[in-house]
């Protein structure tokens, strides 16, 4: 291919990227999700006032999951440590990779006798279609859609625009909050940080 051809290719590629919004913030984009990931651009890192703190009793909830069951937080009391992974919204860049990452790291949760619950304010059909692109998930994904974001609100992680923070909450077997990370929405929480916090829990 000559230089002119090459130049055209690059221009064409830039055009294609621009049209389909492929230019995005500085993170790796996974070649998946049928090209359906919406890029909201750089967002305000956090946009809520956390209302719970370490040592508090975790607000209980019953939420529908994508598998059709209901998930009740208090049912894990005395049995399992619980990690709540709040994500802002389905079909957005960082979230679309966070849970697939957890999906190959089950051992990290198992070693601390912990269960992971993925929480999103999206409705069930949206969550179903989205998580299907992630492969088979070993953990439940629950919908905090209605009353909209009520659980996110109870944990103080509902943002002003109705999405949730990218937040990780660790709840011990007594139902007490041990760790809260309301993360910069634009970046991935590090897996080793979560692993270290899980190591501190009573197994």
């Amino acid at each position, binding site marked *: *291919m000559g230089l002119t051809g090459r130049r055209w290719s690059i221009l064409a*590629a830039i*055009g294609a990227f621009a049209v389909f919004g*492929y230019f995005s913030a500085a993170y*790796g*984009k*996974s070649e998946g999700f049928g*090209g359906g990931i919406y890029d909201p651009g750089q967002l305000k890192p956090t946009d809520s006032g956390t209302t719970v703190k370490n040592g508090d009793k975790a607000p209980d909830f019953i939420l529908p999951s994508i598998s059709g069951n209901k998930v009740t937080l208090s049912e894990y009391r005395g049995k399992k440590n619980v990690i709540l992974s709040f994500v802002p919204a389905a079909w957005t860049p960082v979230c679309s990779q966070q849970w697939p990452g957890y999906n190959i790291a089950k051992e990290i949760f198992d070693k601390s006798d912990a269960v992971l619950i993925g929480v999103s304010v999206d409705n069930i059909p949206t969550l179903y279609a989205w998580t299907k*692109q992630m*492969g088979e998930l070993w953990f439940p994904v629950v919908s905090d859609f209605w009353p909209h974001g009520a659980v996110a609100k109870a944990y103080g992680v509902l943002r002003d625009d109705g999405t949730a923070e990218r937040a990780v909450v660790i709840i011990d077997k007594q139902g007490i909050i041990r760790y809260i990370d309301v993360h910069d929405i634009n970046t991935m929480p590090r897996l080793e940080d979560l692993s270290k916090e899980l190591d501190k829990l009573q197994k």
Partner: protein
Amino acid sequence: MSILNCCLALAAVSFVAIPGLATASDSLTVDAGALAGHRLSVSDNAAAKDYLGLKGTDTFTMPQIKADAVIIEIFSMYCPVCQAEAPVVNELHQLIEKTPSLKGKVKLIGIGAGNSAFEVEVFRKKYNILFPLFPDEKFAIQKALSGPIRTPTFIAVRGYGGNGLKVQHVHIGRITAEQFLKKAMATSGGK
């Protein structure tokens, strides 16, 4: 296969717009100079040092790898396509190691874009990956690419003396081991 490959759709659309753009791979160019300058650490990885033929060095750049050709996979442990692709890349590695004319001459490495050492290790263990993987927590590899990092991206390079590299082949998205190897080893110098 529930995971779709968006680069295929992109290629199709681009092809209609400008007939010269035949493959998705054309949409990304690799800066050989920047890639050659990308520094990786093997300080705590004797197996990687051995495989890559590096002696007495804690950090290295790709032109220092003892090989005729190096295949680089830019991946992320968080990327579901990279997860699905891991067995295929292992197959590629096996194919190289089992072929006498390639063994020792073609080396394979992975760069975990945005991944910490811990995260790369989770990926390595999960898929029992036998070639070296390197963390790139701050997306340093971005400086070698003309567009945003998309994972997985495969880059085949050859050394041409000094500290330079020649980019032989670039592919975004899923591969088949034999076909990729054929393109990586083509003597024409790529596209």
